[in-house]
C-alpha cells in the first residue's frame, strides 16, 4: 500500500524502516546502508566488544578511515591508529581506507555511497552524502556502537525544509558563497531537527563538487540531512566510478515544513566572521583585514576543482611574504589529479605549502594550527572559537578563490580581482 507523498528524507526512512507511511516526528528503527567511522572506530569497537559482541553486523557495510590525525602527529595518535588497525583486522572490516584522505571525500569519489541510501558516520559532516541524493547523518559513538552491532538505529523522522535556488550566480560566486549566504540569512539552526533539500534551477545545474560543498555545510545549518536530487549529473559522476544508479528525488506533492526561495543573482563573494558560520558578510566589507594564514583544505572545499581555482588565481603570482598558504588536498586522489593537472606545481611555485591529504588544520589537529592573536582565512566549514588552535585565534570562512586572493595580498580582498570564473 502506498503512503502519502514523501520528501527525499521521508522516502529513505520509509524504505529503511519498512514502513508504508511516515510522518515527521515518528520514531522509527531504520536499517543502515553504510556506516562510516574515522578514528572513533576504536572507541566504538571497544564499546561493542565490552557489550560481549565480537562481530559487526555486516563487515562489508562498514567503512573505516583515518583522517583527522593522519599521518599521526604524536605518539598518542599513533597508538590510537594502531588500535584502529588492530580492531579492523580482528573484526574483518572489508573497507579499510585508512590512508586515502578525508572520509566524506573518499566515500563519494569511490562511489561507495549511492542515491537513496541511509548513511551514518561518526562525523557531523556526514550530511555531505546528500550531494549524491543519499541521507547522510552524523551520530555519536554510542549510537554507532549500536549500529555496528545491529545494523539498526533509532531515529525520529525529521520534517523537511527546502531551499529553492533561483537566478544566475555572477562571476566569482561559488557554491560556498551560496551556502554561507544561506547560513547568514536563515541562521545556523534553521535546519535543527529537520532535513534540508536544495532544489531549483541553480541546484539542477550545479556540478557534483559544488553540491558536495553545500550538502557538507548542511550540518552548519543544524540539519540532520542535506540532500540534492540525484539526477543526470549524479548518474554521470557515479558512472565514472563504475556505479550504475538511477535518479532519486522527492515524491510530487510531498509536504515541506517551509520552502525558502533564494535568488543567487545579486550575491557577491561571502565570508563568515569569527566565531560562527552564520556570522556572514560580503567579502568586500572585510577588504584589507590582515591574515596570518590562508588555508585551503577540508571536506568542504579541497577537491581538484577547488585547487584548480586557487591555481588559476595564483598562476604567475606569489603568496605574500606577510602570510602563508597551506594547501591540504581532500584525498590522495585529489592530490594525484591536482598533480597531473599542474595545479600543485602552480601552487608550489606561488609559495604554497602542500601537506598530506586529510582533515589537517580544519579541526585544529596538525598541519597549520593557529597561535593566539593569529587570523586565518579558510575554505573550511567551522570557525568556532578554538577550533583551529588557540581560542584567541580568529578564523574567517570563505571560498577557495577568496582564500587564494587573500594569500596574494596577505589581506582579505574581493577575489573577483583575480578570478571571474563561473560556478560549476
Amino acid at each position, binding site marked *: 500500500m502506498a503512503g502519502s507523498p514523501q520528501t527525499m528524507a521521508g522516502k529513505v526512512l520509509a524504505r529503511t524502516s519498512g514502513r508504508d507511511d511516515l510522518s515527521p516526528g515518528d520514531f522509527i*528503527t531504520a536499517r543502515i546502508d553504510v556506516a562510516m567511522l574515522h578514528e572513533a572506530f576504536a572507541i566504538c569497537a571497544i564499546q561493542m566488544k565490552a557489550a560481549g559482541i565480537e562481530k559487526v553486523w555486516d563487515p562489508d557495510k562498514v567503512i573505516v578511515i583515518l583522517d583527522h590525525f593522519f599521518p599521526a602527529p604524536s605518539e598518542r595518535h599513533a597508538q590510537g591508529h594502531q588500535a584502529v588497525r588492530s580492531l579492523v583486522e580482528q573484526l574483518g572490516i572489508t573497507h579499510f581506507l585508512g590512508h586515502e584522505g578525508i572520509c566524506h571525500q573518499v566515500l563519494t569519489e569511490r562511489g561507495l555511497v549511492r542515491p537513496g541510501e541511509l548513511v551514518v558516520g561518526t562525523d557531523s559532516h556526514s550530511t555531505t552524502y546528500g550531494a549524491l541524493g543519499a541521507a547522510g547523518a552524523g551520530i555519536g559513538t554510542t549510537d554507532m556502537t549500536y549500529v555496528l552491532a545491529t545494523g539498526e538505529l533509532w531515529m525520529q523522522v525529521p520534517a523537511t525544509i527546502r531551499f529553492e535556488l533561483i537566478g544566475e550566480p555572477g562571476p566569482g560566486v561559488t557554491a560556498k558563497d551560496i551556502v554561507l549566504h544561506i547560513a547568514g540569512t536563515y541562521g545556523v539552526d534553521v535546519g*535543527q531537527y529537520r532535513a534540508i533539500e536544495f532544489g531549483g534551477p541553480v541546484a539542477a545545474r550545479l556540478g557534483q563538487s559544488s553540491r558536495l560543498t553545500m550538502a557538507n555545510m548542511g550540518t552548519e545549518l543544524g540539519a540532520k540531512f542535506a540532500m540534492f536530487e540525484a539526477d543526470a549529473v549524479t548518474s554521470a559522476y557515479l558512472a565514472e566510478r563504475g556505479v550504475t544508479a538511477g535518479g532519486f528525488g522527492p515524491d510530487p506533492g510531498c509536504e515541506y515544513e517551509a520552502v525558502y526561495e533564494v535568488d543567487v543573482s545579486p550575491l557577491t563573494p561571502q565570508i563568515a566572521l569569527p566565531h560562527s558560520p552564520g556570522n556572514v558578510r560580503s567579502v568586500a566589507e572585510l577588504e584589507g583585514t590582515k591574515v596570518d594564514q590562508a588555508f585551503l583544505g577540508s571536506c568542504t572545499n579541497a577537491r581538484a576543482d577547488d585547487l584548480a581555482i586557487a591555481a588559476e588565481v595564483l598562476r604567475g603570482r606569489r603568496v605574500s611574504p606577510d602570510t602563508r598558504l597551506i594547501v591540504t588536498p581532500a584525498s590522495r586522489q585529489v592530490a594525484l589529479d591536482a598533480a597531473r593537472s599542474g595545479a600543485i606545481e602552480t601552487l608550489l611555485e606561488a609559495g604554497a605549502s602542500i601537506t598530506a591529504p586529510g582533515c589537517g588544520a580544519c579541526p585544529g589537529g596538525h598541519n597549520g594550527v593557529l597561535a593566539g592573536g593569529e587570523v586565518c582565512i579558510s575554505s573550511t566549514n567551522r570557525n568556532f572559537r578554538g577550533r583551529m588552535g588557540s581560542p584567541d585565534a580568529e578564523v574567517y570562512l570563505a571560498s577557495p578563490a577568496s582564500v587564494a586572493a587573500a594569500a596574494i595580498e596577505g589581506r582579505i580582498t574581493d577575489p573577483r580581482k583575480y578570478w571571474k570564473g563561473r560556478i560549476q
Partner: protein
Amino acid sequence: MSRAANLETIERVSGRACALHGDDIDTDRIIPARFLRAITFDGLGDHAFADDRAQAKGDHPLDAERFDGARVLVVGHNFGCGSSREHAPQALMRRGFAAFVGGSFAEIFAGNCTMLGLPCATLADADLDALMDSVEVDPEQEVTVDVEARTVTSRAGTVDAHFAEGPRAQLLDGSWNATAVLLEAGDAIESTAARLPYVRDFSD
C-alpha cells in the same frame, strides 16, 4: 528488541543547577578537539569548556563555587551545535551533569545525550529566562527535571517542558542504554546474524 527489567530507567533528575548563558554554544567550546585523542572518554570531565574557562580566569560558571555540585545545566538556544563528538556530553556528564534544560538543543548533541541517559528539556523562552534568573539568585535550590511529567520545577515554579517523544520513551523504558540493550539482546543478535547469508559469508 528485548526490554529487560534490569535496564535503568530515568524518570527524573533532581539537584542543584548551574546557569550557563549564551546561544549557539558549540561542541568545540564544550570540549576542544585537542582533547579527543584518547580512545576512551576517561578524564574528559576536567577538560569541559577548557578554553572558555581559561579565558574567564576562574570566572566561568563551571568554576563558580556557588554552582559546585550542580547536576542540571541550564543553557540557551542551539546548545551543542557543531561536531558529532560524543565527547561533548561525555565531558559534561563526567563533570557531574545529569540533565540539561535549555531553549533548544542541536540534534546530534541531544541524540548523544539520550544514549548516555541525560535528559534534554526544552522550555519556552519566558520560562527559561525565569529559571536562569532563579538559579542565579538562588543557586542552592533544588531543580527537578521530570521526564515522566514533562515539567521542570524550581523556585520559579513548575513549568511545562518539551522532551522529544522518542528519547523520552527511551529514558522511561531504559532502552536509552544501548550497551545494556546489546548485552540483553546479544544472543538474539548473534542468532539473527547467523541466519543472514551475507553475514555468514564474512564470518570465519
